[in-house]
């Protein structure tokens, strides 16, 4: 199955995508959106960012901190993200929590491809961001060699507050998105 690469964002061609290639776009608009559609844009962004459903992708020690983040003290449910979906097709966020080994790399690519648009990626921890302390044959030096990443959360492991900060930054990034693509010509 072919995967189209546009500006390092891979798009599954079998899903309906906007002709411009922007995976979060909903419609083409000639002229400026105006009051109603701008607020509809904000509403869509708010609803997308307030209910991010992650897919369970804890690989190593960072998964412990991800579990602690969704547990009682640091409650990820406050942000609407308490529902970790086991199936990537039902999730819109993948938190890569832990070391990505050479053997696991094709699997994470497949899981990322199975997620429906719009989708975002958080690289949690040093190993997912850059390979961490493991600069060797077995560990992929950063999951961004395999999938595109939106937010990097440094730490070894990052404390739950740091992961929550990363998720909030992702929410701000989602709030800045435009669901309207200007019409050509």
């Amino acid at each position: 199955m072919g995967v189209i690469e546009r500006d390092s964002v891979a798009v599954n061609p079998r899903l309906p995508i906007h002709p411009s290639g922007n995976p979060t776009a909903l419609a083409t608009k000639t002229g400026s959106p105006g009051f109603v559609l701008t607020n509809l844009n904000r509403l869509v962004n708010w609803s997308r960012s307030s209910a991010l459903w992650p897919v369970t992708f804890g690989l190593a020690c960072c998964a412990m901190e991800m579990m602690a983040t969704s547990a009682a003290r640091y409650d990820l449910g406050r942000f609407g993200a308490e529902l970790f979906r086991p199936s990537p097709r039902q999730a819109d966020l993948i938190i890569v929590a832990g070391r990505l080994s050479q053997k696991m790399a094709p699997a994470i690519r497949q899981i990322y491809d199975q997620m429906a648009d719009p989708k975002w990626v958080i690289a949690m921890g040093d190993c997912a961001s850059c390979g961490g302390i493991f600069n060797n044959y077995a560990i992929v030096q950063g999951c961004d060699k395999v999938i595109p990443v939106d937010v990097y959360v440094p730490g070894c492991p990052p404390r739950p507050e740091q992961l929550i900060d990363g998720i909030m930054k992702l929410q701000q990034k989602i709030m800045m998105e435009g669901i309207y693509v200007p019409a050509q010509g």
Partner: protein
Amino acid sequence: MSIEAKPEQAETADTRHPAAQRLDAALPGALHRTLEQRGQTVLVVDRERIRDVLASLRDDPALQFGMLADLTAVDYLGMDREPRFNVVYNLLSFANNNRVTVKVEVSEGDEVVPSVTPDWPTANWLEREVFDMMGIRFSGHPDLRRILMPHDWQTNPQRKDVPLGEEPVAFSDNVPPNEPA
């Protein structure tokens, strides 16, 4: 076996670990030598008879080494030791609370060892790990393939002549990279 031995038996008093004595009695010629290292006993045995050696250590009623605790390999490249590889079997006896290490010497170019998987099921994945990391084949293994690295990986990473596979780190002028030995 005791210091009160008669004079004509003194020079043949066997002070070895009971595992070494009984193994030598049961399978003469299989035991090449015994090493005592920091309170641990290491038996260096014949490669072709490793299955019989481990079975003897397990079935002997006085020894009862019923558990294969670990199966691993060592690469002595660069240390002026011949042969290059040792395959190491660690046995544990629950009944006697005793451990013994059994070693098989493997020289470079002839890296085949009989598999002990038919007798010890836990050796299945342990031998796959040795095959993946050191490249030592186990004849008679039911499913010998890579276990840690991807199936199409080309090298045996734990061998001492295989480089670590580091990536150069940008802007690290003040920190020298690790040099391979």
